[in-house]
């Protein structure tokens, strides 16, 4: 319920943000209530205010069920808050029309889901480049773009395989490739290290850190100590349930 935003590496920071005006994502008093006005009411997130900037990793930290996924969904425009607002470069997301919001999700946000969410039976390259379809990008260009991303993540030979033919770690990296394929300003990663071994986790964190330093806003939700170590800023969410009970 309370938010504790601390800059752990404030002294070392400041070198990342270069190039054109960097993107800023901001949550202002953002709250989410499921089933309001019913006996099943759930306060998933209670009034979170936080600015997310480029330059280093933001980690949203907290125990299971404290609302990390909920907050990431609100930041990425996949859901709308019950209270407060999310702003991108000063524009509230709820002010955007449906096509504008779709465009925001497509071009500016990369979302790494907690459970990957790849389409079964679809080759990896098509999965990775799915968000390029509504822009009318030819399948040859999509295949090339997907191939490049997959190669960066060490999956260069697997573009024609389907997700069922991959290991858990490979699926996870493919999902990361999909999040990165449009070269988004904002990367939202939900538990990027929870399902994979340490070596893979370190690789993924290195990629995220590099992006953050290259001027992207990178927000990672996790309860993994290893992720917290890598963070420049930590936003700590306390379990709202405990807060309500106590």
């Amino acid at each position, binding site marked *: 319920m309370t938010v504790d935003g601390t800059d752990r590496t404030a002294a070392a920071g400041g070198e990342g943000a270069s190039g054109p005006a960097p993107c800023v994502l901001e949550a202002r008093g953002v709250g989410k209530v499921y089933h309001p006005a019913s006996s099943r009411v759930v306060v998933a997130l209670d009034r979170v205010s936080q600015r997310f900037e480029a330059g280093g990793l933001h980690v949203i930290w907290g125990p299971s069920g404290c609302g990390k996924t909920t907050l990431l969904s609100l930041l*990425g425009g*996949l*859901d*709308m808050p019950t209270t407060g607002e999310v702003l991108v470069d000063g524009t509230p997301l709820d002010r955007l029309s*449906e096509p504008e919001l779709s465009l925001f*999700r497509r071009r500016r*946000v990369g979302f790494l889901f907690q459970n990957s969410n790849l389409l079964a039976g679809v080759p990896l390259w098509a999965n990775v480049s*799915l968000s390029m*379809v509504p822009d*009318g990008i030819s399948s040859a260009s999509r295949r090339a773009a997907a191939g490049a991303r997959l190669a960066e993540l060490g999956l260069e030979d697997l573009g024609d395989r389907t997700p069922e033919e991959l290991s858990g770690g490979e699926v996870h990296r493919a999902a990361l490739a999909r999040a990165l394929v449009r070269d988004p300003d904002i990367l939202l990663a939900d538990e990027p290290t929870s399902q994979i071994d340490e070596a893979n986790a370190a690789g993924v964190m290195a990629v995220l850190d590099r992006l953050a330093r290259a001027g992207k806003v990178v927000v990672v939700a996790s309860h993994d100590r290893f992720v917290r170590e890598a963070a420049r800023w930590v936003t700590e969410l306390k379990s709202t349930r405990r807060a309500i009970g106590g």
Partner: protein
Amino acid sequence: MKHWTLLWLALEMAVRHPVRFWATVGCLVAVFTPLLVGMAILEGVRAESIASVDEGPDLLVTGYEYGRNGSVAEALVERCRRLPDVSRARGRIVGRTFLSDRLLTVVGLGRSDGLPVPPEGEAWVGAALAADLKIVAGSYLSLADQGELTLRVGRVLSPRAGLASSRLVMLSLKDAQKLYETPGRVFDLQIWVRPGEDRHARRLLQVAYDLRTTGHPLRIQTKKLVGEYVDRGLSIKGGTFQALYLVALGVLVPALLVTSGFGLSTRRWEIGLMKALGFSVVDVIEMAAVETAAMSVLSTCLSFLLAWCWVRLLEGALVAQLFIAGLEQGSVSEIPARFAPEPVLIVLALAAILLSAGLVYTSYRSATARPVEALR
């Protein structure tokens, strides 16, 4: 370009779920094939009837007794023939009789120049009937009604002579009069009026008037009227078929909704994912529309192909009997059928409407939900 990539993606996504795809198409085909068969046979029978009416006489005259059709004196035929505007006239006897438990139509034809008529003592037999009774030219045929007759089969009519003649026995008028014991009477009178565009109608009226002044009570029907009776009878049959069909459709539509609805949660999830990745509502609807169009066209084509096979290879089994009275399996070489474009277009439209309800609408519902909700 954007529409192309969406179109391809839509087709790829559709064939990713082959069971769902083919179950839906199969359901539509099962609904539409019999409809197309019925419509084709209805059209075919109508065309054949109209053709036979067109070749028929300009006036059909029957006697009129106690409000019903009755017989006419044969002498009237000769009188008619002498009327100035009449080019041809002949008397007929049309009746039914049983032959080895088969009901058949007997037509006795009076002589008239230019029209083929069996000579006395001879019978001409329809192709289907001949095949049924294993009759060939030269066999003998015994008919019994009021009177009894033994006739030599002079000819078996060509199977291409049309459905109407395939179960007929044609006799000379004299023999038919013996069979039904109606000497000197005919059942109807066919009159052809001299052609000549503008004067044709006037001549018809003149002939009709002349006939009335003979003092016989007569019922006179024009070709147009006969055509309308035929058409009306067919329309009623067609209407009955369509009504039966609507009932069947009413039963099958829920089945269709079940098949297209089955896998709905997967579809919802996929749409949620696409929305999360930045597809707009319009993109999603466009894809659903492409899928609808593809499935409609595919199921219409398949229905058409199957209907064609049903008519040509199975002779419209089960459906043809609805339209053609007394038709038995395999009794004619070719069922009259005509595949007109209208029923095919109707089927296409119906498929599109049904699928839109099941597919475009549910896609719209999923697409307008927030992505996290659809992804859940």
